[in-house]
């Protein structure tokens, strides 16, 4: 007669978690190296237009940002209206303030880098060109000629 053995429960040893910190640190370092700090909090809503022939902006420290778009939240829209606004640093601005903004951005740079300063214009795709033209005129007055129209890479053909 066969002996019926009592089934023995196999115990699984505890999984060692001693290498977990190493793995997490590895991910941490990856993120520290590959990302950069957020500098401004957006108060405008913007969705970049698409383009195929875009170039990367090489030196981030030489880039100043101008954001254009409708106010981001419902509260701000109630206060400032639906029309596209310009954001410099962290607040809404008028086109007339661009000259001052460019001057302060330029002062923050090394003297040798000042003529390499680029303005990155991040505008919502539904913005009217009137606002953009105003900005361009102000930039020309401020003698900041290098400009980059921010756009995201489009897949396939533009229609």
């Amino acid at each position, binding site marked *: 007669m066969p002996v019926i053995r009592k089934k023995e429960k196999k115990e699984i040893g505890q999984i060692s978690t001693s290498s977990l910190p190493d793995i997490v640190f590895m991910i941490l370092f990856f993120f520290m190296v590959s990302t*950069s*700090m957020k500098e401004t909090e957006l108060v405008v809503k913007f969705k970049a237009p698409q*383009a195929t022939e875009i170039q990367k902006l090489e030196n981030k420290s030489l880039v100043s940002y101008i954001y254009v778009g409708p106010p981001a939240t419902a509260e701000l829209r109630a206060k400032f209206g639906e029309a596209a606004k310009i954001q410099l640093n962290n607040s809404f601005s008028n086109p007339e303030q661009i000259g001052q903004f460019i001057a302060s951005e330029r002062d923050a740079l090394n003297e040798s880098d000042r003529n390499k300063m680029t303005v990155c214009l991040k505008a919502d795709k539904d913005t009217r060109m009137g606002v953009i033209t105003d900005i361009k005129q102000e930039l020309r007055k401020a003698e900041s000629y290098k400009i*980059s129209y921010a756009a995201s890479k489009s897949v396939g053909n533009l229609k």
Partner: protein
Amino acid sequence: MAKKTPEINASSMADVAFLLLIFFLVATTMDIDSGLNRVLPPWSEEQSEAPDIKERNLMLVHVNKYDQIAVQGELVQVNQLKDRAKEWVLNRNNDKNLPEKKEENIDLIGKHAVSQGVISLQNDRGTSYEMYIKVQNELTRAFNEIRDELSKAHFGKLFNDLEKEQQDAIAKAVPMKISEAEPQNIK
């Protein structure tokens, strides 16, 4: 005898690392800025007329507030724009109405007929930014394709794969002349 130091408990190390990780995930961005690079013309107080450019060397591109595009006064679609611009700049048949070419000696390439054409882009205040970028993009694409063709012919590679000096030579042979004109109202 020296006292044995007790082992430090490292079990909370993972928690600390996770905390740091989450901080960096929240506080940083990964997006690389990219866009269409342009150089604005210098500001002049008296709104002077465009510098003396012969009529045949100027291609006028208008975009009105209904986002319609006109090339030399003729309505075109966005997808036709690139070929129109390319044909116009290249002027393969040396047409009298299309831009002049000037023989120039360029390092690494030698003699090359450089087109003198300037594309002037004018828009209305009511034009949408999206359309403006599309037009800019198509015009850039026209020049990039011409550059690619020339690079293929001379170096057997695409423009982006060339060495720095070779790129400079090609850029000199095919200058990207897109002018953003003084703002004016277009009907």
